[in-house]
């Protein structure tokens, strides 16, 4: 999983030491790969905003937690809520900075670095925004290595760090400070507020030290995302893409098929988790012509081939639109689209008993063993 070794394939640069305006398109593409939830609607506005900041304030330094003094104060950032809401109500620009500063005020100490709560979706871009605005480095590490539904679904929480105190700052200019001792309570309290804040909010959470993150965060995930993004920008053929992704993150193809059906509320619905359960049925267009059934809930949580479970959360499951040569996002799927279903192993911590209990199939109401376990 380490990205420290030098890459042998084109576009792969190994560990990256800074992020400049030129890296923004790659950052965006990588963010799309690590979560199919990213739509196109706000792409140009967000990338223009980030590129403008990096142009004005200079590149952001990207540091591994080990490269920082252990007592450096660090805070994670992400967008909580939906990308669609953010597209329709764009940030004013100061939300992330203000969220961080609110915790600084509370704790009376400045932060020396920021890091992504989840290096995927727009949440991969906003820590760079905050780093540029605050003039601090960005850590090459995150808490998920992809995205999961709830804010305590992190390696930090598994390692015993608390998400609190946390601040959500909305595009309305309002903010919420949450202080809890039990991680899952934070998410419950937060969700109710996010809707009122406009459907999304800037979240600053998991204030801690670089020393704690050395063991608690997933290392190298920002570099990895940038490398994947650079590869996608080259618009390789689907076969080349999978072969080269395999070298970066172990990705492989499950199958290729056309969308024949979209189902909704296809599983019992737990309203405390965002995004309702839905399903996607593909007819394989080559090979055995299997029926591929994808279970969705904000992310793709399981893939069945002719009813046999072939991949499941915490695996990262993504869709590559082979006729357009780009990652497909879940909110723009249409019957007739021709897609490659890709599976990438998640970071090892998610396959532990604790990790599986938190983000595995059981958490989505699917009572089956993970295919890697059987």
């Amino acid at each position, binding site marked *: 999983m380490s990205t420290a070794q030098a890459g042998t394939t084109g576009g792969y640069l190994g560990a990256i030491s800074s992020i400049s305006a030129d890296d923004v398109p790659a950052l965006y593409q990588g963010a799309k790969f690590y979560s199919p939830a990213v739509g196109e609607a706000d792409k140009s506005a967000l990338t223009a905003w980030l590129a403008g900041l990096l142009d004005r304030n200079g590149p952001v330094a990207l540091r591994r937690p080990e490269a920082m003094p252990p007592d450096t104060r660090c805070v994670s950032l992400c967008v909580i809520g939906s990308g669609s809401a953010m597209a329709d109500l764009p940030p004013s620009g100061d939300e992330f900075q203000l969220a961080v500063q609110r915790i600084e005020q509370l704790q009376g100490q400045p932060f020396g670095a920021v890091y992504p709560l989840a290096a995927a979706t727009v949440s991969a871009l906003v820590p760079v925004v905050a780093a540029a605005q605050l003039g601090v480095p960005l850590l090459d590490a995150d808490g998920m290595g992809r995205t999961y539904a709830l804010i305590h679904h992190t390696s930090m929480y598994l390692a015993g760090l608390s998400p609190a105190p946390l601040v959500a700052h909305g595009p309305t200019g309002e903010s919420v400070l949450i202080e809890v001792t039990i991680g899952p309570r934070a998410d419950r309290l937060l969700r109710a507020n996010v809707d009122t804040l406009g459907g999304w909010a800037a979240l600053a959470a998991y204030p801690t030290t670089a020393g704690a993150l050395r063991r608690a965060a997933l290392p190298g995930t920002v570099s990895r995302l940038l490398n994947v993004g650079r590869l996608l920008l080259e618009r390789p053929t689907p076969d080349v893409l999978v072969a080269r992704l395999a070298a970066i993150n172990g990705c492989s193809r499950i199958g290729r098929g056309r969308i024949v*059906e979209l189902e909704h509320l296809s599983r*019992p619905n737990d309203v405390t988790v965002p995004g309702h359960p839905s399903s996607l049925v593909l007819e394989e267009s080559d090979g055995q012509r299997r029926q591929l059934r994808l279970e969705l809930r904000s992310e793709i949580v399981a893939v069945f081939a*002719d*009813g046999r479970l072939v991949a499941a959360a915490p695996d990262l499951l993504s869709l590559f639109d082979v006729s357009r040569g780009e990652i497909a996002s879940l909110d723009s799927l249409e019957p007739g689209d021709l897609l490659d279903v890709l599976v990438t192993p998640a970071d090892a911590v998610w396959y532990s008993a604790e990790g599986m209990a938190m983000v595995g199939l059981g958490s989505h109401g699917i009572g089956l063993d993970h295919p890697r376990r059987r």
Partner: protein
Amino acid sequence: MSRPRGAALPVTLPITLAELVRIAPLAAGEVLHLADPARPVEQVVVAETIDRLRRSSPHSLVVLHADAAAGGWSLAAALHLAWERNASAVVVARSVAGPSSAALAQRLNMTLVVIDEQPVEVALQLAGQVSAPDAARALRQALFAERLAEESSTRAVLSALNGELAPVPVALVVGDAVLAGRAAALTEGADAEQVEVDVKAPGERPWARLVAAVPARVPGAAQHVEALLRLARPALLASLAQARLNSAQRATHEQAAFGLLRQLAVESPSTDRVGTAVEAPAWTSDLGWHVDGFNRAVWLAPARPVAAPPEQLTELVRAAWLRARPTWPLVAEDDGWISWCSTSDAEDVSLLRGTLAGFRETAAAHGLVVGVGRPERGVPGLMRSVAEARLAAHVARDSGPGAVQWFDQVGPGAALAWLPTAEIAQVADLCLQDLMAAKDRSTLVDTVLAVLDCGGSLSQASQRLGVHRNTVLTRVARARQLGLDFEDPGQRLALHVLCHALASLSDDPGRSGDGPG
């Protein structure tokens, strides 16, 4: 009967899917995919989790419940496991199954039934049926008997049978003719076994047979089908009795009405060629008859003349002839039956041709011929067409059973049809004794007839008979020795007629076996 009546039914045959889906509770559900109706079901498994399926034994019927029926994914996973475990079927609540579930069931060829009732209750009922298959069968038979009791026509009984036993085809057969049901029951295939049950009319008279083609590889299927066929017999007899009552009344009514109509045509002051002056009486339409347009009469008659056809034959002809056109008339008269069709366009024969085609099998099976008259206007025209049809029918007899003769195509040849051939043949017995005693009599008669038909030309006659000219010459010489000398112009017509009569009688297979005296 391909199976001895009363053979003991094996008691432990497991119930099949086809049987289960016909009785409650599955009968109230919907079969999204039926992989193999003959598939036995040996056990019912209530799966609350997908894991439970991993422990199911082959030939199980799996009812999904709770977590195992949590959504499309669980049904997909269950179908896959059912396929792996060689289960017989999967049953699930309707709300869980989508179009893609049916597609997957089809792809895995796994039977899938959706239900609206509580899965656990359904499973309990199914378990009872599977553990006591004979009770379930008895239940099915009782339900079926109830349904049959409501049917009053032969056709409805057969369609109920076919519905119940689908895909097994069932037919009601009289002789070789299918009276109702699906003719496919009679086609013998390598993988089908025929099951037959006799249906007797009152007085133990054989009337018809119920025939079903049952898949041979399904153990116990034949016994079960036979049991259901037997169940249908009382209903069929009831429908027969009703039909006979109806048809007897109708026949009398029609006969009287046709007599009146004929009288009308004769008494009418205007019997001119056009014949439109006679108005059709209003009561004709009460019978469903049409006589206003161009009437083209049909005469149905036995190929071999008989005094009056038996009543059963009349019924059969009525059933077969009126199958497609139930409102057409059918009037028994002398040695045949009169019918007609009335059209506004004299040249329109499409309806009639269709009916004739449908009647062909019955006609062949029961030794009937058909004559068709020309289209004529009004009541007098109808009577003229009837006479023509009758003439044509007589001509048709020359071509044997099943023949159809249109009067338009007969011409003067019709005259020959009226010759009393039987009487003429008796004349031959008296005045051509030597010939009638000869063993090669029929060959000689055929040869002389051919020579006379060909105007005395031996070459033409040899071609027609397919033998050498010298053979013809030899036979003619021998015939002359036996008294059949046609050289005398004064006797030639009489001998020609005699030969025609003898030849037409010997064509009749019914008489060919008779020895001379």
